[in-house]
């Protein structure tokens, strides 16, 4: 699984990109976010208010129940502010 972080989520987590083997307790977006929060204070801080967090799996916006498979590209970022 490839993880990408953008904007202030990237800044708080301290990296733009990482690769993992899918942990056994992760099967959807919710469980992925829960697992990430436990990885350190930067993650916990970045993910403390999930109202300000958006997730895309394989470049499509998804909700908390969306399944996660090994090999997925998962991006985590704040609401967009382009245009």
């Amino acid at each position, binding site marked *: 699984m490839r993880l*990408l972080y*953008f904007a202030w989520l990237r800044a708080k987590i301290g990296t733009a990109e990482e690769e993992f083997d899918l942990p056994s307790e992760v099967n959807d977006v919710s469980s992925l976010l829960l697992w990430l929060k436990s990885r350190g204070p930067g993650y916990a801080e970045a993910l403390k208010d999930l109202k300000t967090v958006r997730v*895309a799996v394989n*470049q499509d916006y998804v909700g908390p129940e969306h399944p996660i498979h090994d090999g997925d590209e998962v991006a985590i*970022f*704040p609401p*967009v*502010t382009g*245009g």
Partner: protein
Amino acid sequence: MIRVQREDFDVGAELEKLSRGNPRIGGVASFIGLVRDMGGGDKIEALTLEHYPGMTERKLTEIEVEANRRWPLDASLIIHRYGRLEPGDRIVLVATASPHREAALAACHFLIDWLKTDAPFWKSEEAPKGERWVATRSEDDEATQKWKATKER
């Protein structure tokens, strides 16, 4: 057509290209977004636009396809810049061409509203107290919701 680029663009040339050689087109509507010198009450020195390469192009293409599904367009264009930009600089150009002015105007409005809430770009501003990430405007979400409520033509 969509383009995501660091460089500036030539508005006159882009709009001209959109209708050139197609005398069916009766109207070209466009919107240019510019960097403002104020943000959250503070003077802004510059802003930096970050984006998600790959997903950006995908989302802009989806938005353009949806506009073409809703209105009879002969041509459309979205150019969005990324990188560091200063007040007065162009950020985005959205343009639509149609035999009918109502279609061109509505589709242009739709594209910029939708792009604001769907395309994965993030702005950070250089303000007097340092760099900070721009927050979403709830008006932007409402503008897109309005279009979602009117899916049919």
